[in-house]
């Protein structure tokens, strides 16, 4: 009798501990993305590229050290500082993808989006970078912005990819100034009519070529804010 009680008590104690506290979705709304959303709420700027693949060349400030925010904006604001790699053979460019899950380059599924989505709109600005040592470098940084492209490199196939129509949609080589600019990426030709998967939500790249930086060259500092996927 005693032995049975002991076994029952043991099983009860061990069992109640072994039951997990949850699945990791506690307190988080689950489901595909539909309607307007801030990219900072759903994707993380963890996909560093080019010189940014190595630690120390891109510094990301999220929600701090931002440029004064414009009225009515939402989501997180960002400041990115890119110090180019000056070694021979370095990439001379860098970029950051906002991805979900963090650091995913196509090995894991991303988020499902339910169309329609017509544009990605955001605000961008930069610090001027006069470089007396290299007159070829323009004072206004030249930045490209794009949506899509993860997992679609034929040279490096991945099990999952951004399901845009075509490789990606980009605003190429926009010259940023110290004032906020409103920029839009048109999605009408890249978003499918049916629900689709996106690992990435946004991306920027900076290319120093042909203005090759020198040791005296200042870093590129860009500000981003209010990045929104908009169905309208």
């Amino acid at each position, binding site marked *: 009798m005693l032995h049975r009680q002991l076994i029952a*008590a043991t099983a009860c104690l*061990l069992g109640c501990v072994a039951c*997990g506290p949850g*699945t*990791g979705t506690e307190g988080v709304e689950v489901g595909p993305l539909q309607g307007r959303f801030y990219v900072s709420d759903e994707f993380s700027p963890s996909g560093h590229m080019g010189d940014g*693949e190595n630690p120390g060349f891109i510094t990301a400030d999220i929600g701090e050290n931002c440029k004064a925010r414009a009225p009515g904006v939402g989501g997180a604001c960002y400041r990115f500082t890119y110090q180019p790699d000056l070694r021979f053979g370095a990439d001379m460019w860098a970029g950051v993808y906002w991805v*979900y*899950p963090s650091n995913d380059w196509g090995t894991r599924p991303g988020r499902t989006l339910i169309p329609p989505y017509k544009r990605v709109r955001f605000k961008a600005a930069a610090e001027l970078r006069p470089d007396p040592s290299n007159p070829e470098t323009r004072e206004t940084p030249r930045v490209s912005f794009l949506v899509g492209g993860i997992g679609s490199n034929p040279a490096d196939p991945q099990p999952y990819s951004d399901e845009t129509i075509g490789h990606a949609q980009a605003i190429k080589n926009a010259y940023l100034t110290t004032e906020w600019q409103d920029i839009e990426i048109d999605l009408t030709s890249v978003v499918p009519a049916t629900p689709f998967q996106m690992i990435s939500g946004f991306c920027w790249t900076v290319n120093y070529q042909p203005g090759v930086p020198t040791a005296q060259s200042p870093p590129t500092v860009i500000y981003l804010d209010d990045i929104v996927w908009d169905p309208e």
Partner: protein
Amino acid sequence: MKRFFQGLAALLSLGAGLVAAPRLAHAEDPELNPYECLGRYEAATGNRTISQIKQEIKKRIPELDNKDEPKSVNAMKHCVVAMLMSRTGDGDAPLHYEIAVKNAPQEPGYELWFANHYSMFRGARSPVTETAEVHYYASLKKLDALRASGKYRAYHAVVEEWTKKRLMVLYQQDGLHLIPGKQYPQKPGGLYRPSFSVGAIAGLSKDTRDFNRKGDWNEARTFTLERQFANSDVRAGGASRPDPYLKGLKPFEHYAIPRAPLRYHLDAKLRYRQNPIGALDFTYDQSHAEQAQITSFYFPAGCGLAPLCNELDGSKNGLNDVNVRQIGGAYERVLPLYPLFDAKVGLSYKRVHRVGVVEFLPNKAEDFNLYEGKLALSRFVGSDKITAELGYTYFDMPLGQGPVAEQSRSRHIRSALLEYALYSPLVLPSLAAGEPSFLRTPTRGWYFYTGIVQDDEQYGFRTVTKRDIFLGSRFEGSGIFDITLQGTYATGKQTFSSADTGMLYSDPSQSYNGFRTNLTPQLRIINPDAIPGISWGFDSLMLVFPISHDLGLKKASKDYENIRAGVEMWGRVFSPVLGPAFLMTAGYNYQSFYNINNGANPKGMHLFMLNLRMGWGDL
């Protein structure tokens, strides 16, 4: 024939004495040395089984009803029965102690035995302090009264020494009492006086275990999960790192992950103790671990290619310091709820300030609440004791950075333990008679236990689960030798859920399965129960030889298999000045991770620890 008549005469005179005794009782009860109770108890239990002792109790109970005998004699008989009942786990023991105290109201010795029942037999993981206190202080009051009336005998000095020592042992977790009353040497009026005491632990170690002082108790698993995460496609396993690192961890990085950071900590508490409320603590803990945390899992061994890999703030060799500060409060009380059980309730709250455990951000501070609850239930099953223990710790972490789905952070640690303590005398091999033989031997207990500890830490949609299921036995012999053997099945896994559907997936690349064997023989150099009173010097001293082995149960868990052995010394000193208990532990261990090497030799580490505690915790 002559002997027969001598024996008969002795019996007759004894009978005459017993018959005559009641008549004398009405005049004045004879003074009895309370140690006669202890002597009779020892005579009734020596070399006997528990069922024989129970028979002895049955035999003695009818003899307790003799109303004509002197009350002091009757008190002594009740005391013997009560002690026998304490030994056999009989719930009626307090009833007989009470009668003994009632029938010999001036005798402090019975109060001492009664208090010992609550401090040494009863309780759940801790003595029933508040009930034991009542009788220890009653003993002190009676000793004072005897001294005043000139009836303080030589044996009362021994009773007094033991009473004060037992009170000190009862309060050993309190530390240094700041105001008189419960402060050593305790005064008779100290029972209901509030007590304020300070306790402290100072520790220094260089060890592979206990990285964040809670939860990371299995270093083979900790290092394996770190290596697997670093080697995953979201870190070094998926990144195009510069030469010579490249994609995927290199052998020198595998080799670097096991580490033994230098750590020191100071825990301090101010305890308020009040009978019958219990103990209320205000705590402050500070700890520092030197180069303990991997700063970036892209480079778990650091990146030495400066300036290619600019060192992140605070990082050297890929590691950064961890600092933790905790301020909080705790409450603890053992509740005697017999005939059901004794219950220990413990609750604590801490506000934690932690720096150094967020990846990439070695200077990032986290502030959060930590809640802890413990419940232990204990009761006798015959002479044996069964104890069930439940624990729950909740880290209420702040939201992390990143997308909403990845911000949620929390940690739950749950534990359950079931212990069966066998207190029956055991037939054990003996060489006492000069040749091998088997004797029924009383022991300090043979403990069998099983339990589970589960630690779930949530990082957004990912949860890292570490689970230990253990089974063990500890034998505490009557002599100087104790031994513990424990086996632990340890697992670690990572699960993640889809942000779209909430469906749960496990990540097979992030899992650990291992078996740990612990063998801990120990020698009791100085027995704590052998010395009455308080004087400088070790009251208790143990030499411990911990040995452990971690076996990986699948290929991915084998890298950090290891064997570890060492020697530790655990000692306790009571200060005759104001009476705090000092507990010292010092040890050296060597740990060999025999499956990884630097090209020539397996990785081996010299480890040490030194702890000094004033109050706080059992030895």
